[in-house]
């Protein structure tokens, strides 16, 4: 892939006199100048509230906001009216658990999740199950760190109302076979919800190919601003579901004792939306589309292969998840024998290398792996093979000072 580092102003800054080696894009990505500028330009030149004003400035702002929606929709192969802007993946999933739960889940029904879910795609379903007297079941993983599809088949039944699964695990990196999962889930009449926070930023995603019913992702993990995310849903489902927040543009008619709703996606966008953030996300999508998502994926696979190879070659390192880079997204989680991940992160930080250490909002998975926490490196378009090598060499120094 072409060198894009010059497009990201933050990469020019140092950390304690050293260049910044940013290996935490799975937490949040850095932003290219075009995104920063798009958001700033909106405030400088185009700011007004959307959908309401009858004056030129508001019409222009609305056009920019809706233009962003069209860009995001095209990016995932969806129709614009199926793209709801939210605050992020977490809000998308929480809101959906509420609406879908109201419409589709009752006592004795089952909700099927996996042990590799981020808390944001687990806890909302826990609460829903408690509210409705439904049962929550979780599918485990194989020793290789892949979803146990046999267990999935066993746990899927005519009682299953919802299957909620991550596309790419934010710890194991595992890419789950969503098309297959969707087929099996639909065969029993279940609705399929996909957490795509770690996939949409890193690979070409077409909702039709996935076959799912809902897809959630965040803007800030895909070069866009914070405060903007997406919930995509099939049109007929969005028409059926009740709204989760009320007031503002989601309203059609209101009387003192009742109200009716606007059409999707507006039905699910109560209050003034994150307009500038949507415009920024639109610029991010343009930038990624220009790079080409297949190219992004190829670049990350190269870096992940390099990181995996280096980590697996070090006998003091334990790596979690599939060893085949093809079966993974852009994250690699690991531990140094007998060393707490926080120590690893702190020592790497001394060399300007930013990695994540903790449970990555996936406590059940860590319990299953038998560790309280793990280190995680994650890569994106601006990372280089040299940075991965720097990281691996620095890891040897961490081991030298604390290990053995």
């Amino acid at each position, binding site marked *: 892939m072409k060198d894009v580092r010059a497009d990201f102003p933050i990469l020019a800054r140092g950390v304690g006199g050293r260049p910044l080696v940013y290996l935490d894009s799975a937490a949040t990505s850095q932003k290219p100048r075009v995104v920063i500028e798009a958001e700033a330009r909106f405030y400088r030149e185009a700011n007004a509230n959307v959908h309401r004003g009858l004056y030129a400035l508001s019409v222009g702002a609305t056009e920019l906001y809706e233009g962003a929606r069209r860009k995001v929709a095209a990016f995932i192969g969806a129709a614009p009216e199926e793209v709801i802007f939210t605050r992020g993946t977490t809000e998308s999933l929480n809101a959906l658990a509420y609406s879908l739960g109201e419409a589709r889940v009752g006592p004795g029904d089952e909700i099927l999740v996996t042990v590799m879910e981020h808390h944001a795609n687990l806890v909302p379903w826990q609460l829903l199950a408690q509210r409705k007297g439904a049962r929550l079941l979780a599918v485990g993983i194989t020793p290789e760190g892949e979803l146990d599809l046999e267990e999935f088949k066993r746990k899927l039944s005519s009682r299953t109302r919802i299957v909620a699964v991550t596309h790419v695990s934010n710890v194991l990196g595992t890419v789950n076979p969503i098309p297959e999962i969707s087929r099996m889930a639909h065969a029993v009449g279940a609705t399929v919800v996909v957490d795509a926070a770690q996939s949409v930023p890193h690979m070409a995603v077409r909702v039709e190919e996935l076959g799912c019913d809902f897809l959630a992702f965040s803007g800030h993990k895909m070069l866009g601003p914070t405060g903007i995310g997406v919930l995509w849903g099939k049109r007929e489902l969005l028409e059926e579901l009740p709204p989760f927040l009320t007031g503002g543009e989601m309203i059609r008619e209101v009387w003192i004792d009742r109200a009716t709703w606007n059409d999707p996606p507006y039905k699910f966008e109560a209050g003034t939306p994150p307009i500038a953030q949507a415009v920024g996300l639109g610029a991010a999508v343009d930038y990624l589309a220009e790079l080409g998502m297949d190219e992004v994926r190829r670049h990350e696979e190269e870096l992940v292969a390099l990181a995996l190879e280096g980590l697996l070659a070090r006998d003091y390192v334990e790596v979690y998840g599939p060893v085949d880079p093809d079966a993974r997204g852009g994250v690699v989680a690991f531990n140094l024998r007998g*060393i*707490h991940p*926080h*120590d690893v992160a*702190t*020592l790497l930080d*001394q060399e300007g290398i930013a990695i994540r250490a903790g449970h990555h909002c996936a406590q059940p998975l860590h319990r299953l792996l038998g560790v*309280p926490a793990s280190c995680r490196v994650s890569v994106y378009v601006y990372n280089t093979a040299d940075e991965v090598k720097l990281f691996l060499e620095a890891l040897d120094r961490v081991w030298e*000072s*604390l290990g053995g």
Partner: protein
Amino acid sequence: MSPYEDLIIDHWRNPRNKGTLPDPDVDVTEANVPCGDVLRLQLKVRDGVAEDVRFDGRGCAISMASASLLTEMIKGKKLEELREMREEDLLDALGGVIKPRLKCALLPYRTLRKALQALGVRERSGSP
């Protein structure tokens, strides 16, 4: 300041007073749940003096080195003196700790306060 002064590396590699006592007067455990750090602290008390002390646990280098150092600081001290010990005393002895890791460094301090409470030693004057 490096977060891993030689002192921390030394206490991490060669922990002092690590293990368990056969007949402790107090035996308490504290944890930093999100990190998985767990610390057990035991004291043998005679005539109001912490005559012997042991710690055991698992966690990051900072929490474990801090625990080791704390046992050195408290062994042979009067409980009255331990009551007056402040967080800063431990942090200063460690040579300073970077902000994101304060919780790790202070786990042993919290464990000591729990031990003193279990022994019926009243909180020091003026503390919340």
